[in-house]
């Protein structure tokens, strides 16, 4: 029942948000691309592939998701510590046209390769939770919204190749309501720390 509800909600969200797809880098607003190259790359790395796990990888991220997150920083509705300390200021100085261009720029970049850094057992558990959820506790599969390969769908973010520690940090923020994400909170609120870590390792490896 819960899985069905989630899927319906996801479809409704997709319909509401409209389809988004990555576009050719050459067609992106040069001013936005320049901002991404000369400012965002400082922390998020060249082409959106950061080296520090404190900063998320943006390469190949869903355009709609990126735009929504930058808007959340601009409106201060996303307010975890890094958002408050760093992104409020950065995003606050961007105008909406640049925000859209930056989202398009990163959506068009090649994705970061998957990286395996964990025991096989954790990976296997992560894959199980990702693909099937935890039916016994009513936790739906991550793949329902984030796609079977964790590449994201519509505005649901790409998770494949993301730094595992960043995924863990964000899931913890969502679990504890530090980061406002009502749909995700309902889905992940009962995940155990071990399950969160396993899923994070798994999506990083994709």
């Amino acid at each position, binding site marked *: 029942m819960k899985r069905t509800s989630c899927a319906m909600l996801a479809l409704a969200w997709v319909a509401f948000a409209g389809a988004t797809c990555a576009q050719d880098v050459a067609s992106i607003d040069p001013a936005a691309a320049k901002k991404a190259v000369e400012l965002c*790359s*400082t922390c998020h*790395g060249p082409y959106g592939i950061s*080296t*520090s796990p404190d900063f998320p990888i943006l390469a190949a991220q869903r355009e709609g998701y990126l735009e929504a997150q930058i808007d959340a920083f601009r409106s201060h509705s996303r307010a975890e*510590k890094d958002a408050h300390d760093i992104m409020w*200021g*950065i995003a606050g100085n961007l105008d909406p046209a640049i925000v859209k261009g930056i989202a398009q720029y990163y959506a068009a970049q090649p994705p970061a390769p998957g990286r395996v850094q964990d025991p096989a057992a954790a990976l296997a558990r992560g894959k199980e939770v990702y693909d099937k959820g935890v039916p016994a506790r009513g936790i739906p599969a991550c793949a329902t919204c984030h796609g079977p390969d964790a590449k994201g769908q519509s505005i649901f973010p790409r998770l494949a190749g993301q730094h595992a520690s960043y995924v863990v940090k964000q899931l913890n923020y969502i679990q504890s309501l530090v980061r406002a994400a009502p749909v995700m909170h309902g889905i992940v609120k009962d995940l155990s720390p071990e399950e969160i870590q396993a899923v994070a390792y798994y999506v990083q490896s994709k």
Partner: protein
Amino acid sequence: MIENSTTKGIGAIALMLLLGCFAGAAEAVPSFARQTGQECPACHVSWPELTPYGRYFKLTGYTIGKAAITSDGPQYLPMAIMAQASVTNTKNNKTTDPDTGDTTTVTQRNNSLVFSGGSLFLAGKVNDYLGGFVQWTYDNLATVTNGTLGGHSSVDNIDLRGAYKYSPVGAGEPEWVFGMTLNNNPTVQDPWNSSPAWGYPYTTPPLANTPAAATIIDGGLAQQVVGLGAYAWWQKTLYVEFSSYRTANVMGNLFRLGLPINTAGGVYAINNFNPYWRLAYSHEWGPNSVMVGTYGIVANVFPDNLNASGPTDKYQDVALDAQYQYISDEHTFTAQTTYIWEKQKYNASYAAVQDTGAGLGAGPTPDNATDTLRTFKIKGSYYFQRKYGGTVALFQTTGSADAGLYGTNPDGNALTPNSSGYIVELDYLPIQNVRLVLQYTGYTKFDGGRSNYDGTGRNAGDNNTLFANIWVAF
């Protein structure tokens, strides 16, 4: 007297805490934070130590964020204020004359709460290519006439920059950053915290007995010279800079305003243009960053700053340095080290003594034609959540024995400038704008000796200090 100074100190701290509270409530942080809209941790591990992003912000000319004034009018107040108050305990604050038996005090206001002083910053972005800061500092404990203490203000660090980022089509980050800096303190333009101007210790007791000798690049020329430099930073990996410094007697003495320029020995006067260089290789991986580099200066110094003509003494400083940083949300570990080697060629001072039997200027006058001075520093810091921190540091200065510069011991032998010791520090930042510091400095050698270094029976360890400090910036 002590009661009076203590009362003033308490008042100053109360005012600082009040301002700190306002700072937290209003999110009013120093002007660069207002410019970028970001909080201190974006650029600083613990101020003034810079993160990789902070280094990028500095080397791109302080131009990230909004200009202070745009076509839409004023955007923010491009000013900031910093202040410190402290208590210092010197382990043995009495010294006894071996001939007369008279006892004198080594430092004033020992164990008293004092307001050290504060700084006013004018800092911000001018446009997408220009930015900078000017610091004006009030020293509440400056030595004035007859050894008494009083307030004095003067210009502090200045760093004005222009920078241009070059990104070829298809690049993922700037291929090159080219920049220029106009500043008044060699190494103040440096983005790494292993070189002197922004190196550890970040704050020291305002009233303490400290070693006499230091290399000229280690603060010796600060606020007395003005330098124009050009730099290039390639792929955020290789950094090359060349600057040229001269006496800051230009532009109405702006870059040395308030310094004792008319006092013999009050400032350095250097001849013409004196080269400074910086070369650094850095690399970032995961949450880690490392830098290895070299910097140095050749300074031609007039022995008499009131008569800036004729032959000069030459100071050649060559330094190696390195930095490592591990920065994550919870845990931060950083380490810096530098080794400075200085060759002092007293082409003017020594020659004058040989010719006339008397030195030049305020002295002291060297007994040797050439001397060397070597300084080594290393420190490691750990911070938890950028809030609770601890630092351990070692320092050592060694050099040639020279009776003219450093005096003689009771046996008549020339003394060395040798000093060494350690610093242990604890920090607590209740909010990002306020730092509480508890710092202990211990000396194992002081001005040439471990025991009875000055002939009065005073030992190096007698100068050990315990320093409790509150530091506010907003």
